[in-house]
């Protein structure tokens, strides 16, 4: 039996998979009909029972998040889907939405109904024109079909869904920054408390969920909590999309139960590119501390990865082989955090400014061994001192790479420059 469990991805290979016809042909929107006949609280309980946890990185139990919304408070409630997929290495939501946007629309209908929201938003990053087209068309078609708008499915419930398109800011993946951005402000994180469940969008109770979390809901409703629970590990239930990229023979999306290992995925993917060895990898995007070959058998679930010193994050498995200079890789990520720091707090805004300079000097052979101590001290002054997790994330590649590859940093100092040939790392290196 396959180790893979395609649920979200089950019908992606149909050429018209993104159309409403194809989605319905494959049983789509039946879960919404079923859900709308249920008591909203029972729906929340169902999602709680399924064990579904947030797929955007933090892994917070989805049903519990829904349960935080005060009921009977006579306030508008909002559902906001976080489709601002921007964490380096993360590439699951965009292909999902390009291939099957309707599963998200159906998930939105169910989730909005469960939390008694009449208004839902999908906040999608702006740099994906075609994904925007597909999703906007799916929403329009769902309106036409009577699945959105007034009296959805003839049930008397009203659910409006607005696609909000971002404009290039990684920080808007942080849920409170996303809300500020959606309200028409610069996307900077908000002070918490109050938490979005109490005062989110327009200061009203709001649930913010990742695309994959909401997209998982129709299948849970259709197949039941037990079915979902049957996949995964003790505390990390269900299946999820693992995104494999980098120096592998066959990169791509692998939908598998939580707890699968990188070794198993690499076997499926035909291994590291021929003639090369695994050097380091990220388990869940660049903000999660690096792993090396010694972590090949770490179960890729929330607990397993945490126990090994990193985070499951977005399950973005970026694979780098021995041709890759770790200092160059870390410098580039650090430049990314500097570019994306929102500027609100001192440690992140100022810290990334200096981290980049020190790493650039090191990469160019202009650094010294003392710079390593300086890097670690700066990371100590950023990690846990910043306003939000962006600053923490910026330190992850640095501290973890120094932990595993200190000698390589030193080699940049003593050898007066980078000992690697960058050309050898490229996809087209061998073709030349």
């Amino acid at each position, binding site marked *: 039996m396959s180790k893979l469990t395609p649920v979200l991805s089950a019908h992606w290979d149909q050429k018209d998979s993104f159309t409403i016809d194809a989605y319905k042909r494959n049983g789509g929107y039946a879960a919404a009909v079923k859900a709308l006949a249920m008591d909203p609280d029972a729906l929340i309980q169902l999602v709680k029972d399924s064990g579904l946890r947030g797929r955007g990185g933090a892994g917070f139990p989805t049903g519990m998040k829904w349960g935080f919304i005060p009921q009977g408070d006579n306030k508008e409630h909002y559902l906001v889907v976080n489709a601002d997929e921007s964490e380096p290495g993360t590439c699951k939501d965009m292909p999902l939405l390009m291939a099957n946007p309707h599963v998200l629309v159906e998930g939105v209908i169910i989730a909005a109904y469960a939390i008694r929201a009449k208004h839902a938003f999908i906040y999608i990053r702006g740099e*994906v024109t075609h994904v925007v087209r597909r999703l906007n068309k799916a929403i329009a078609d769902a309106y036409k079909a009577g699945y959105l708008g007034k009296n959805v499915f003839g049930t008397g419930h009203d659910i409006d869904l607005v696609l909000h398109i971002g404009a290039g800011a990684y920080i808007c993946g942080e849920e409170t920054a996303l809300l500020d951005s959606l*309200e028409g402000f610069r996307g900077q994180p908000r002070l918490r408390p109050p938490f979005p469940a109490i005062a989110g969008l327009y200061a009203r109770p709001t649930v913010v969920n990742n695309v994959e979390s909401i997209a998982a809901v129709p299948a849970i409703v259709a197949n039941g909590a037990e079915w979902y629970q049957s996949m995964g590990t003790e505390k990390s239930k269900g299946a999820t999309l693992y995104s494999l*990229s*980098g120096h592998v023979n066959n990169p791509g999306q692998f939908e598998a139960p939580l707890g699968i290992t990188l070794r198993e995925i690499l076997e499926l993917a035909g291994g590291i590119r021929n003639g090369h060895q695994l050097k380091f990898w990220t388990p869940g995007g660049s903000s999660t501390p690096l792993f090396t070959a010694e972590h090949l058998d770490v179960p890729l679930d929330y607990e397993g990865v945490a126990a090994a010193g990193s985070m499951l994050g977005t399950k973005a498995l970026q694979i780098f082989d021995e041709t890759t200079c770790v200092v160059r890789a870390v410098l580039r990520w650090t430049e990314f955090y500097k570019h994306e720091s929102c500027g609100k707090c001192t440690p992140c805004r100022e810290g990334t400014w200096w981290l980049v300079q020190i790493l650039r000097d090191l990469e160019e052979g202009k650094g010294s061994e003392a710079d390593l101590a300086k890097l670690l001290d700066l990371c100590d002054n950023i990690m846990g001192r910043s306003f939000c997790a962006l600053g923490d994330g910026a330190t992850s590649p640095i501290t973890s790479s120094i932990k595993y590859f200190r000698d390589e940093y030193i080699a940049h100092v003593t050898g007066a420059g980078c000992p690697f040939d960058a050309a050898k790392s490229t996809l087209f290196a061998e073709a030349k």
Partner: protein
Amino acid sequence: MTTTNSVLNMEIMQSIIARYPRKRSAIMPLLHYVQSVSGFVTNEGIELIATLLEIETAEVSAVSTFYTQYKRSATGEYHIGVCTNTLCAIMGGDVILASLKEHLGIENDGVTADGKVSLEHIECNAACDYAPVVMANWEFYDNQTVESAKALVDGARAGNPPAPTRGPNRLVTFKEASAVLAGLDDGLAEEGIQAGIPTLLGLKLAKEGK
């Protein structure tokens, strides 16, 4: 200011505002809309948005400078973004960017003299399994090489760019793409493939029982 508000369609702007329960939320799609008309965020666009949303011009300007997709000076008709985040950079993005700069004779954030192509290094664009990735007007060009990227910009300058890898059958212009990002329908949603090979890899293996 040389341009006039007459090209900004009030009906469209009001329809964008009407999407939201509170009108300030419309600021981002309105800025995309201004770019779809002018190719960048103009002063008149900022002033009109401020008037429509009943906020200060400084508040609109503040938002427009926060997000990298909003440009305060003219972009090329084809805006090329080369991903140089770590994975793409290492897989070839750095080489591609360097060669495009040389090929086009412009620096990062530059525009060719003919106004056809602008170039920008971009961060991770959520297509890592297709690395190295180049975006043209925010459409995907997957698994790029120096040669394919040069062919893209050459085609763009000649007025016949190759179609995106995962996108519609032709590459739309920056202004046309901006209209899509303003939430306006260009009727191209059903063009192009539903998924590339990496996207389908896991499903294929599962079906093969692996």
